[in-house]
């Protein structure tokens, strides 16, 4: 593909990734949140694919496919399993209400751009300039983790963080060595599985997967 298309596709998909992150903060319905996550995963795959095609890097193409499968399909389905069992499947009372969260998201995005100046300066390619998007997605994910009560939305937050970092990895270095990349995504998959198992057990024990009940252990 030609260069302008390449850059626009990259930019577009990065934008989508951040947008999905914001959506996670925005929507209350857990299903919607999971859907957003799935979309983000696909966008991430798209980024990897574009980079791979543009850089004629077959390894990266493989990774793209892998990401598509893992983050676009498998992970969301795993999570929806939990949601399906969950009765009140809405993030009704986030610790920070939605408008405030969106403002925070804005601030975090700004911070991401400010903080990654040194990186963009170093990787001055078309892809390099997009790195802040990855950082932003990561920060927003972290924010979701810290403010959302439902187990599901916390898992999603974790995955947002992960996608963000993966995006940075792709953009900055066109993929860290394959073995590491594989290890990383495998780990993510495993973590989701573990969390899903734990969430199921939680539901069996506590009836719901509301994380506020996890305050037995304290000083």
């Amino acid at each position, binding site marked *: 593909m030609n260069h302008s298309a390449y850059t626009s596709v990259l930019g577009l998909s990065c934008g989508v990734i951040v947008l999905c992150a914001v959506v996670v903060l925005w929507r209350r319905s857990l299903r919607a949140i999971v859907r957003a996550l799935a979309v983000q995963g696909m966008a991430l795959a798209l980024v990897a694919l574009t980079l791979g095609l543009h850089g004629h890097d077959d390894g990266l193409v493989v990774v793209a496919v892998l990401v598509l499968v893992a983050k676009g399909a498998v992970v969301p389905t795993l999570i929806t399993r939990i949601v399906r069992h969950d009765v009140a499947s809405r993030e009704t009372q986030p*610790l920070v209400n939605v408008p405030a969260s969106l403002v925070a998201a804005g601030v*975090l995005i700004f*911070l*991401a751009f*400010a*903080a990654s*100046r*040194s990186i963009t300066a170093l990787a001055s390619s078309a892809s390099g300039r997009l790195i802040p998007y990855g950082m932003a997605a990561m*920060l927003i994910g*972290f*924010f979701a*983790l*810290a*403010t959302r*009560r439902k187990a599901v939305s*916390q898992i999603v937050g974790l995955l947002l963080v992960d996608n963000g970092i993966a995006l940075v990895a792709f953009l900055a270095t066109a993929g860290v060595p394959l073995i590491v990349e594989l290890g990383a995504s495998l780990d993510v998959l495993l973590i989701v599985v573990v969390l899903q198992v734990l969430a199921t057990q939680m539901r069996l024990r506590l009836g719901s997967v509301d*994380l*506020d009940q*996890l*305050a*037995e*252990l*304290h*000083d």
Partner: protein
Amino acid sequence: MTSGGLLTCGALLGLAAALVGAALPRRKRVLVTAALVIATCVVESVAAIGVLATGHPAQWHSSQLLPMTGATLALTPLGAMFVVLVALVAVPATLYWIGYARHGMSARLTASSYALFVAALLTVPAAASVATFMFLWEIMALTSLALVLTDQSRRAAARSAGVWYGVITHIGAAFILAAFLILAAHSGGQSFAALESHARALAPGARAAVFLLALVGFGSKAGVVPFHVWLPKAHPEAPSPVSALMSGAMVALGVYGIVLFGDVLLGGGPVWWWLIVLALGAVSALFGSLHAANSTDLKRLLAYSTTDNMGLALLALGASGLFVATGHHRLGALSLVAALFILMSHAMFKGALFLAAGSVQVATGRRDLDELGGLLRRMPQTGALFLIGAASICALPPFNGFVGEWLLFQSLLHGVKLGSTPGDIAIPVAVAALALTAGLTIVAFVKAAGVGFLGRPRSPGAEAAIEVPRSMRAGTGLLGAMCVVAGVAPMAILPAAERAVRATLPDVGSTPLAHGVQLQLVGVRAVLAPTVLAASLVVAVLLVAFLRQALTRRRDVRVAEAWGCGRELVTARMQYTATSFAEPVQRVFDDVLRPVRDIDVSHVAESRYVLESMSYRSRVDDRIESALYTPVITTVRRWGQFARRLQPGSVHRYLAYGLVALVITLAVVAVLG
């Protein structure tokens, strides 16, 4: 065998004693351990005496011990002085232990910590590098802590005393460590030699910091006000041989530390350092003696009087520093000799007193003077020894305490008109403090001896008291004998002290003391003839006694009932108690002591003019403890309760910590670019 070799072989003996103490079955344990401990003391003091005789320090180094630093021992004459001091207390205390052991001091852990404790006490003065010193120092702290806790299963007081002692000791050690490390950081190496050679080049501020840190650290070990609070808690709770060692020897090592830093490592300092030391000494002496005069618990009284005596030692030390700082080296040396002698004699009489007190506790099961009395008849030898100890601590001629105070007084006396204004102001005050301390000490110990041992028993326990086993009397007796010998013939000790001082202080010049039969200060007109004094006292007593016998017609002595103001049958409860004895002093120093008195009167039902019963209680609390320590403890506790909110159990909160940290990091990095 070289003295360095002796040193190490002594230490090895100590270790062996500890192992034996842990290994042997109960029957043999104490005897064998005690034997080994005494052997350790003997070997170490032989090494020390060798050093004192030749003046050459005993060296020993091993690069195979203590990772990253290696272990270094070097016994200087000063250190040797303290090794001898420790041995002087340790040998009798260990003898005493043999008899005392059956009263709950024969457990494996106790026996081996006792052995280790003595070994540590003996080797600390020989330590010649930061790591070695701190290692031995902490071993000493740890073992003594274990020993203070010996009675933890029986007495709650022992438990809390343990905590107090442990915490204060640990904080003190931290101060000492900091002082050492500032020096070490400057000098690169960590051996005392390196520290000493570089310390002079250190900035005055840093030197002062080092000195003050060391002063606090070692002061807390020496039980100097305001770090004394652990003594009256720990000394009474520890088993008596241990109290004797802690109060006689360990506390003295605190003063050793101050000398080590002030005179050896830092090589002297400006006048104001020593004025602080002087002030600390004066305050401690007064505070200690005042509280000693007002305590009724025998061992608590002794503990406070330890603070008092350490105060005197610091007084002498401060004066010495003052004189050296103003260029009067010989006087400085004289005061330092005085300090050493005071420590030496304190070790002797305080040891004797604590051991005697322990015997009383064993015989009567009581420590409260208001429950004792009439023990001199029931325990004649222990009683006599306590009287000797009391006379020595009251600095009455011809006992050792007197010589110490004379030396101190002389050095102060000749220190006036040195032309340094602070000195001229400080020294009269110091003399006054010394004098008042002496007076209050007499109150305290007339009370202790008179109420405890004379008169009539105030409790069935005291009624049933019998003399303690031989080994205990032997241990106490040894120390009592030392008190007399050191008082009658101080020339036996002073040359050694003097050599130590001359090896410690720079350009002392000629000897500050000439000693034959009489003690003569060189350069000033001051002579003390202790032997002659003692002799003439004895002669006079014999003469007067003879005259009394000769002049009286009837030789027989009729036993009569005491005068009860016309009342028949005077009961033991009518005697003056320790509380009532101290009452006048208590009143005089009301504002300082703030005693807590409560009187409750209950009337008979019929008329409120007829008393049914009336009870009077009076308690003197340590105001420094309540003013300085209690607030700190409560604030820390409150903070601890408050801080628990940091960990409320919510995973969101925990993640928020992380998020905040991350945001801050990113912001900082963004700023740094």
